């Protein structure tokens, strides 16, 4: 049985019942704004693989970041992180909630941001 869902056209039709002259392009913009807001909830869960680099501590998660296949991550919130073990299996690693607990050595770090 097919699932009932609304296309942008159907959303626009419902809106145009009240606002008949609204251009489709503006409605598409507003739908995209709504999708950005919905992205902050658990609406879409994804998995991605990232390659580790020796001596690199920080891995970019910004809007432009990509996985090891150069696909955009489009990441909002990380739920779990797994690391490959010596047999090629992915094992979940714990999250450190208080980063001040650990004394870390960042002298090997190459990706530290310098002031610009």
């Amino acid at each position: 049985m097919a699932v009932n869902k609304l296309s942008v056209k159907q959303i626009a039709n419902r809106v145009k019942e009240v606002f008949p002259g609204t251009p489709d392009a503006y409605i598409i913009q507003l739908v995209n704004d709504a999708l950005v807001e919905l992205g902050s909830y658990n609406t879409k869960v994804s998995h991605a693989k990232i390659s580790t680099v020796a001596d690199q501590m920080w891995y970019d998660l910004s809007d432009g970041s990509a996985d090891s296949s150069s696909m955009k991550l489009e990441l909002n919130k990380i739920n779990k992180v797994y690391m490959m073990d010596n047999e090629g299996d992915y094992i979940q690693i714990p999250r450190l909630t208080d980063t001040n607990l650990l004394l870390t050595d960042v002298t090997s770090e190459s990706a530290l941001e310098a002031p610009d």
Partner: protein
Amino acid sequence: MASNITYPDKHAVWFIEGNNLCILTNLDSSGSASTTASGRKTWKAIQESVTDGILINYNSEPNKVTSVSDYPDVDNNMHNGIVDYVKRCLYMDKAGKTGDPNQSQIALGLSQMHEKRWSDSSKRFGMKKRDKTGGTRVIKPFNML
């Protein structure tokens, strides 16, 4: 290529700092406990380069729509909420544009009504993850001894 770490769950941790995922380990590139680092320098960046070495599970941004034939990239129970979001914005536009104060007030009221419906569908009935309030409760009685 597999990594040299046998037990990542014991020897690696992650945390988030700003827009970055930070991965730390207390092992050297051969997967052995670091012998050169002293105690307070034990935890440092991963010492080896491994293709696809990390797998992350995350909430991602829905794909944007580009034409009227597209379907919003979210669960269909959120589609009606999107209609409310669009109407909320258009009523707000109308409230700002109209010269008649009465019309403006009516548009503002309708905007708030759609705002509430949007908010209910996305937050109250939606799939918002509430880390601190979700899950089962266990009552821990006060120790009287």
